[in-house]
């Protein structure tokens, strides 16, 4: 990744009069952390980075934006928002565009072809996280960890995020400006996490998910981080009527996760954010990728590839399978 090119390009974008801010990544406050950052002027582009630690999907900020009532006489700022995206993130942008969650001319997409990011927990397990800020770089197929002045080679296989092992779209599917050269897609395996669960009996599956969902503390970080969970009036927050009770127990937690998974069927772009942020390690990616697999297998549909395409639910074909309808 050419940081100079990144900073020059983003500085130019941030300087534009028609740009409100640019969302990118910067070094975090400690260890391996990277923070999403909102840049309003070109000078701040100096802090931007793109590295295997840039796990977060910034597309979520397109729909997370708050619109509090404006003081009388004040007009809404309708300038464009620029954002940096990896391949998976770009699919979220495309999907939001398909759903008309945002208008194409409201955004500038800065595409960053991505050779794969790391699972910070795996990295920290191997190279314990320290308070001091450290860097990780792509080097060839693998990574190089730079900390305390020392360069440590890290094998890709050891620390690559699970979603990246399965990634088929490392290059942005939508991009106004591309930084760096496209990367060559790699050989992916059939999602072993999902397959493992598919092989279980119904009872075993139930037992598996019961154990997972019972742990959920309902912090809603999975929902909030999800770029495609952007309903203005989420059924989880609805108390009148109460669809999902706020009581934290297996039954209500399951209702929550099933509702979310179904709402994402045919929409989830498999960016893995829900799984990454879960503070109690619930393998939510498996749940969402299972539904994605069903949609792909049964209907040949993959969301977030064509910003001008139709949403899954609106793409009915007369020969769609319907064997699951009782």
């Amino acid at each position, binding site marked *: 990744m050419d940081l100079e090119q990144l900073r020059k390009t983003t500085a130019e974008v941030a300087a534009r009069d028609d740009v409100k801010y640019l969302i990118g990544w910067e070094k975090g*406050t*400690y260890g391996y952390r990277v*923070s999403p950052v*909102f840049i309003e002027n070109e000078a701040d582009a100096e802090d931007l980075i793109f590295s295997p630690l840039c796990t977060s999907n910034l597309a979520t900020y397109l729909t997370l934006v708050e619109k509090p*009532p404006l003081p009388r006489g004040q007009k809404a700022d309708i300038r464009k928002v620029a954002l940096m995206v990896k391949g998976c993130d770009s699919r979220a942008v495309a999907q939001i565009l398909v759903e008309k969650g945002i208008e194409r001319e409201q955004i500038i997409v800065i595409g960053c072809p991505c050779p794969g990011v790391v699972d910070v*927990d795996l990295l920290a397990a191997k190279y314990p996280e320290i308070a001091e800020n450290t860097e990780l770089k792509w080097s060839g197929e693998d990574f190089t960890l730079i900390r305390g002045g020392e360069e440590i080679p890290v094998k890709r296989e050891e620390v690559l995020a699970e979603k990246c092992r399965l990634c088929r779209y490392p290059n942005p599917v939508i991009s106004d400006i591309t930084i760096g050269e496209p990367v060559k897609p790699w050989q992916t395996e059939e999602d072993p996490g999902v397959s493992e669960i598919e092989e279980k009996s119904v009872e075993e599956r139930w037992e598996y998910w019961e154990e997972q969902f019972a742990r959920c503390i309902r912090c809603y*970080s999975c929902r909030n*981080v999800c770029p495609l969970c952007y309903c203005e009036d989420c059924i989880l927050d609805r108390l009148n009527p109460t669809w999902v009770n706020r009581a934290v127990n297996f039954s209500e937690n399951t209702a929550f996760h099933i509702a979310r998974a179904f709402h994402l069927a045919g929409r989830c772009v498999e960016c893995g954010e829900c799984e990454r942020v879960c503070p*109690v390690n619930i393998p939510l990616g498996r749940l969402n990728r299972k539904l994605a697999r069903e949609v792909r297998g049964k209907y040949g549909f993959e969301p977030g590839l064509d910003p001008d395409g139709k949403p899954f639910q609106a793409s009915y074909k007369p020969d769609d399978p319907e064997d699951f309808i009782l």
Partner: protein
Amino acid sequence: MSAVLLNKDKWPVFVGKLSGKVWVPKVEDGDAICFAPLSGGEAELPRFCNTRIPPKEIVFPETETLYRFKAGGYEIKAPQPDEKTVIVGIRPCDARAMKIVDSLFHWGVDDPYYLKRREMTTLVGLACSSPGPNCFCTSVGGGPASTEGLDVIMFDLNDYYLLEDITEKGKALLEEAEGLFEKAGDDALKQKDESISDAESKINRSVNVEGILEGLPGLWEDPLWKRVSASCLGCGTCTYLCPTCHCFDIQDETEGFEARRYRTWDSCMFEEYTRHASGHNPRPTRKERTRNRINHKYSYYVDKFDLIACVGCGRCINYCPVNIDIVDILRQVKEAL
């Protein structure tokens, strides 16, 4: 206070002798998610830095029935917490947190559920030997071997645990297992002191809270709040995993003829937390909510109870999905003063 040694071989016997429900940290796949009731198979305390979910959930369950009634009826039955409980392996920061939260649950009217559980619970702490990268307990009045809130403190001295009783409750607990201990000699006590200073030296993060407590109100309109909350997702991770966060919601639930009113953790970072029935929200954006979270811990709670409602456990930093870092926020507060 007296110090005794427990050979680690005798660990299962020791925890087996404790009366009441014994909770220990549970480590799975190398990760300590939470405390769990002793299953009986534990040969020793697992190695862990700290659990993701603080043991506050034992005395302040995430969801707790306040009372039950029949749908359409008026007879109310309230459960009474009455289970004797021992939390073994609680870290000093989390025990301090309970002590801090006690003030709130005592304020004005006693909260019978929380306080009864606290009364029934004995805290057997484990001093920290390897603090995590974001521990900053020493900045907010704690330390790797702080005894505040603990009934017994344990130190890991390789083959042995050194145990000291702090309170009468702790003394009574040690008496339950009296025959298992050996006398702690000067060597062991010296080893203990070394382990404390070693742990203290491993704490890398710090905040100088001086000036922050008094200065926060003056920074109400400061641009820093917008900056530090810009990337906030508005989830409840920081508050749910915080050992001093104690806010809750009360809801009713009916299933058939059985109904209950319960309380459940709530988070000031959620939009609907302060939203009036009319739709008006006095804290309309994440900026106001983040400002409230920091102020509550470092200003309001100090005003009310003369205590900082933060023990420096680092969980909100460790598990924030977008690296919102309270140490960094406090640094920026300090700069803005």
